[in-house]
């Protein structure tokens, strides 16, 4: 089936490896992703003030464009998913706001479309068993800590992504590609989001440090996430967390694409750098 792909700003800039590995994983699994012709930044955060209607214009336009093109949307950035899905819910349920958006954007759209995360497609459409069958490399039981953070899961009644207190989708995907998902308590906790960017105080990002330590203490060898902001904050922990406790941070699609046969370089795996330990364990280069 063909889907409209919404990469989001970060995947076109800092997180290119996330973009490349997402496209390649989808291709390997028979999911056709076609990037929307024109799209704007979703706004990164869903506006929580009821009168901040203007902030909904960009995600509304993307949703309307996909509907116009007759495709359902797919994204992998947790921020984009959160904003797009919540905007769609709002457009479906709040007539007043929808009317304002329709007038402003001049697109007649009432929330008929759908927004998917690639992981949801793997779970609900492809099936993790089928993903498993199509792997070309074994991840050799690499101990990976799946990190959900906030945006995929909450608010639970709007995101309906997975059980917000005990999500399993990343675990099941990782197990399917031959990794060993590590359970640790802070996998649904906040990474500190934009707090460190604003530098409100000379405070360290203790939230991200706690997450890193929690994953590390559980015996993980790497963390995977679906959020560039989470990835950034976790990487920034290096200044506060001793090297031994500091884990490499990867996008879920990097390990997925690697398992599906994409070469390590295209996957953004660096055998000589941050990912040395990971690469050694999974034996970079060998294809079954």
């Amino acid at each position, binding site marked *: 089936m063909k889907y409209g792909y919404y990469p989001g700003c970060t995947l076109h800039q800092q997180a290119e490896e996330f973009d490349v590995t997402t496209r390649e994983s989808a291709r390997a699994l028979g999911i056709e992703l076609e990037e929307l012709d024109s799209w704007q930044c979703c706004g990164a955060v869903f506006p929580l003030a009821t009168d901040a209607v203007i902030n909904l214009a960009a995600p509304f336009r993307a949703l309307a464009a996909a509907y116009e093109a007759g495709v359902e949307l797919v994204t992998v950035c947790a921020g984009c998913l959160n904003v797009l899905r919540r905007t769609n819910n709002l457009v479906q349920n709040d007539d007043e706001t929808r009317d304002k958006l329709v007038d402003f954007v001049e697109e007649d759209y009432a929330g008929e479309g759908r927004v998917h995360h690639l992981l949801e497609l793997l779970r609900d459409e492809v099936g993790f068993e089928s993903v498993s069958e199509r792997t070309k490399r074994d991840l050799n039981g690499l101990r990976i800590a799946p990190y959900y953070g906030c945006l995929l899961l909450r608010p639970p009644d709007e995101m309906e992504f997975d*059980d*917000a*207190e*005990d999500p399993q989708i990343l675990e099941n995907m990782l197990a399917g590609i031959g990794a060993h998902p590590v359970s640790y*308590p802070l996998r649904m906790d906040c990474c500190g989001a934009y707090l460190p960017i604003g530098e409100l105080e000379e405070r360290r990002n203790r939230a991200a440090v706690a997450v890193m330590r929690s994953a590390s203490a559980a015996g993980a060898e790497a963390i995977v996430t679906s959020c560039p902001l989470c990835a950034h904050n976790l990487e920034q922990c290096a200044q506060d967390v001793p090297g031994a406790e500091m884990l490499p941070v990867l996008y879920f699609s990097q390990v997925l694409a690697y398992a599906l046969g994409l070469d390590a370089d295209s996957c953004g795996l660096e055998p000589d750098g941050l990912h040395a330990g990971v690469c050694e364990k999974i034996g970079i280069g060998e294809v079954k």
Partner: protein
Amino acid sequence: MRKIGVFVCHCGLNIAGTVDVKRVAERCAEIPGVVHSEDYSYMCSDPGQNLIAEAIEEKDLEGIVVAACSPTMHEPTFRAAAEAAGLNPYQVQMANIREQCSWVHPDDEEEATRKAEGIVGAAVEKVRRDEPLVPHEIPITKKAMVVGGGITGMQAALDIADAGYPVILVEREATIGGRMAQLSETFPTLDCASCILTPKMAEVGRHPLIELMAYSEVEEVSGSVGNFRVRVRQKPTYVDWDACMGCMQCQQQCPSEVESEFERGLGTKKAIGVDFPQAIPNRPKIDPEHCAHLRGDFCWLCSRSCPVDAIDYEQEERIVEEEVGAIVLSTGYDMLPQEVLGEYGYGKYPDVIDSMAFERMKSSSGPTGGEIRRPSDGEIPKEVVFIQCAGSRDPDKGQSYCSKICCMYTAKHATLYHHSVPDGQAYIFYTDVRAGGKGYEEFVQRTVEEDNALYLRGRVSRVYPEGDKILVKGVDTLSDENVEIHADLVVLATAVTPRTDAREMARIFNVGTDEHGFLNEAHIKLRPVETTTPGVYVAGAVRGPRDISDAAAEASGAASKVAMLLSREEMETDPLIAEVDEGDCSGCLWCVAACPFDAIEEKYLTRRVGDREVSRRVVEVNVGVCQGCGACTVACRDGAMNLKGYKDEQILAEVESICLIAGSQQ
């Protein structure tokens, strides 16, 4: 034309605050046939009733309308007042201008007043066509049924039986005792639950007037107050209980050990046996899901060990029909399903348990022999966190109500814990301590002062394992500090919930439920153990969360209501029932199909025409069974079926009146 009186009640400001009651009374006086119309502050009061009586006597009224509240509460009041003054009580009509008018239109006096005029005017048209009616007398079956054999049902059954009436006690499980049988000690006296419960169980078991139907469920109820017919399904126990002597050899021999629901997952049971040694009846049953033989394996151990050959693998369920005059429902409560509060890891981490599991742990016949031990490793916990309101007062994910009993049993748990582990520390997260009850607040204070429990005002957001401890992340809003406790054991005071099949039971007994599934009483304050179905009573936690004292009190209350009913030889039935005009009836039997109470039967009218006998089919209404629902009158194609007091012509007259008044108001 019949002489009609209209009495408009202010109900203080409940009606008069919105409706112009004087105008309503004046307008009604203009209706032809209305010879008396007045308003008064409280018609239901003695002076109000006297006004009605005087008017009836002085003006020879042949029908009255009382424009006041819903008939639920005061229709009997006004009927009685009218009857005392010489008017037939069925020539009294309530016009509800409170619930259906003033309360729902508080902001529009003009509209509300006009609507009230319409309601009262219609009632006048109805009552002028009301015929005097006389109740029927039917005999009463002097026997009661109590459904649910926990402490409430046992108490009710004993009280009814002690009053001299036979009782059938139906219990779903194989033993009576209910939730109380699972408890260790009870608040506020710390009486051992078994010590006060088991003698009562034994009394129930040997009472000559109590017939115990254990491992049975009610399937269907028909009939009505005084004469219910109840179908009870006796589930197969695979043991001939009449032959069995209760030696429990079978239980000892059985090789299949499974998790015990009675022990809240902390202990095991055999596939044959009793939940606890004091079970009444003291007879084992086979759990077919886990019995090796019944699952097709080669095992006859119980059968071989039985000295009286009572094991019967072929036993099948039996349906029994019983006739009773009154029914008490006392099926108790369940607890919140564990998956609701994922943040507490209940069901996921073994050292997070619920309060009922703690009760089992403290019970001397429980899985740890009364010692408090961590389920994970059997160690004695030194830091124990109790979390109250786990799913209570939580309209978002749990139950919106306060579960009422948790404050007290948690204080009890902390006290018992301190007695067992004097060097341990109990922490209690609470939202508000609700300790209204005799000796309750004093008990809580002792828990703090003498038993060293630390009360923390606030909730816990998350619980997860850290090393071999359980990290509890909570808040103490009194100090405005977040609190972290590395606990050995976490006990959740999970919400009391209705039985999962409560709504189905309510349907069987024709009783209402609230939005949660607890059974509704007829009036929450003044008729707490009655229901809107006469002859069916409710008591205990089936109505909502209750402690043992309240449940026992309600049980005795329901029992006395039952005794009142059964003490009469005959009872009057409401004459507002269906009536067939045999002349118009074509015998099509559509009414028979429409009747939900099986109250209509066919019969044949025979007469001689010349030298031939001609027979014609018509129907007949059973006055003891008909509930006056009116379904048959709608189904009847011939217009032969009518509901007394609600004849077609009366209803059409009401509608016409409303149309005329509405038309004239425009």
